[in-house]
């Protein structure tokens, strides 16, 4: 199956500022693909080039077999878009926005009222846009992005500025979109969001893609370190821990030990050691690296900086 989105050698600059240096990647049908990186890394620019809202200086893009520049209207009809920090008319009512959007697409739109119901907006259908909460606005934008039953949905910084509860609710919605067989392309600077939602992520910084893979593969590749933290008063424990294969370092503070090593087998090896020597522990937990650590490793700084 050919990829749904193909981006190859795309470059985009604004005056003297190069927003996107050279970006190449593919998005497959039915996956949630995340473009992750700090603010200003070129995420939105890349996405807007793919949506046909901007024209790249160089490179080629194909979405659903269409050229976003030449076939922009044909493309708009088949994709759904949620823009970062978008607004609607202050005094447009929720149902009016849905009704208007329904009228804009050639394709037979899906039932707007049902969509509002699914997104928990039914009791807000007569409310003005300006009186909605941040989460309600985002849910409305998701509704508008889904109104034409699109084949690909673009979500730009979907949950920025939302409280954790709304964020989780929206993650569930995005997973639902995938369940319906759609392809989702999203950007985020939240590593937790990428880790929980995305099937594959591309890490972008300074307009260049550093690596692309499934989140767990990225972690495995770039951050193989594992740490087991446990507490025991057994005097021979430290010596035994040092003898475990794959252990690189054992740090002791009082009765607490941090056992550092590499590879997925470390945890099993530690548990084996405990049972073999009958070491009694009062605490046991593992610290596993995540995308945040991958980002730190690849770029030398935290994504929040």
């Amino acid at each position, binding site marked *: 199956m050919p990829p749904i989105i193909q981006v190859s050698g795309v470059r985009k600059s604004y005056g003297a500022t190069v927003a996107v240096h050279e970006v190449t990647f593919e998005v497959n049908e039915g996956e949630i693909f995340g473009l992750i990186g700090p603010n200003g890394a070129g995420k939105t620019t890349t996405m807007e080039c793919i949506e046909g809202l901007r024209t790249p200086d160089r490179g080629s893009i194909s979405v659903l077999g269409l050229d976003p520049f030449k076939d922009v209207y044909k493309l708009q009809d088949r994709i759904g878009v949620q823009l970062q920090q978008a607004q609607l*008319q202050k005094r447009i009512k929720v149902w*009016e926005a849905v009704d*208007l959007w329904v009228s804009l*697409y050639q394709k037979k739109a899906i039932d707007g009222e049902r969509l509002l119901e699914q997104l928990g907006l039914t009791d807000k259908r007569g409310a003005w846009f300006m009186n909605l909460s941040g989460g309600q606005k985002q849910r409305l934008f998701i509704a508008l992005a889904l109104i034409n039953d699109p084949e690909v949905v673009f979500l730009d910084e979907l949950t920025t500025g939302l409280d954790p509860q709304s964020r989780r609710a929206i993650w569930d919605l995005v997973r639902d979109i995938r369940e319906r067989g759609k392809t989702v392309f999203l950007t985020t600077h939240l590593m937790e969001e990428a880790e929980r939602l995305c099937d594959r992520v591309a890490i972008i910084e300074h307009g260049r893609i550093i690596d692309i893979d499934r989140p767990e593969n990225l972690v495995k590749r770039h951050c193989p370190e594992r740490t087991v933290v446990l507490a025991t008063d057994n005097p021979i424990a430290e010596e035994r821990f040092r003898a475990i294969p794959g252990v690189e370092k054992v740090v002791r503070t009082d009765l607490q030990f941090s056992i550092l090593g590499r590879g997925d087998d470390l945890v099993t090896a530690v548990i084996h050691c405990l049972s073999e020597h009958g070491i009694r522990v009062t605490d046991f937990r593992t610290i596993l690296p995540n995308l945040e650590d991958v980002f730190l490793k690849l770029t030398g700084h935290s994504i929040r900086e």
Partner: protein
Amino acid sequence: MLRGLWKLTWVEIKIFLREPLGAFGTIVIPVLVFLVVGRLVGRGLPASSLAADSFVQVGLPVLASVLIAVSAVLSLVTIISIYREGGILKRLRATPLRPHTILTAHVTVKLILTAATLALLVLAGKRYYPVGVHAPLLSFTIALLITTWSILSIGFLIASIVPTARFAQPIGAFILYPMIGVSGLFVPVASLPPVLRGLARVVPLTYAVSLLEGIWKGEEWSAHMIDVAALVLVFVVCTALATKVFRWE
């Protein structure tokens, strides 16, 4: 796409009427001013006074029309810049809506509101106005549409270049109100000082006023072809420039 145009136009009308000063500012106030001024002038001067007749019969309707058109344009400039600043234009563009459909919808809203206000003025005038007016209303409406269209295109050009919504209204007013001053609306162009007379000749509103007054007085269209041509020229030039420099965000 026609369906989208109609829906967008209708939604924009509703939204406009929900604005705190929307309907009141653009429709009620002009009608009130028209009635009050009409009564004062009509009563204060003897009925046979030529000055009063001429002002009430020709000046006032044209004045009202031009002011309505200009305020419609100012509000268009403001709305476009607010929509741009808020990312609303960009959001609309990320749909199959064609850019010109979005712009046409806004112009249509303004034309409809102008027409509605004017219709109210005519009704109010018929009911309360002391002086009998026998103007060719259909021709006048067409002349006013041409005028509004032309001034709207100036508005679009302004809307295309103003940096932020905060500047939209003042910049628009700064450009449009002096135009009204020299357009012959208050003082006939012929009695202006030479410098201003020269200015009046290049200001599009002068042609608008000349056209509107002429048609209102019952003159033939053929006598005002230059006015129409000037207004069309303004429309073409401003629209062409505006489409070149228009920014969506």
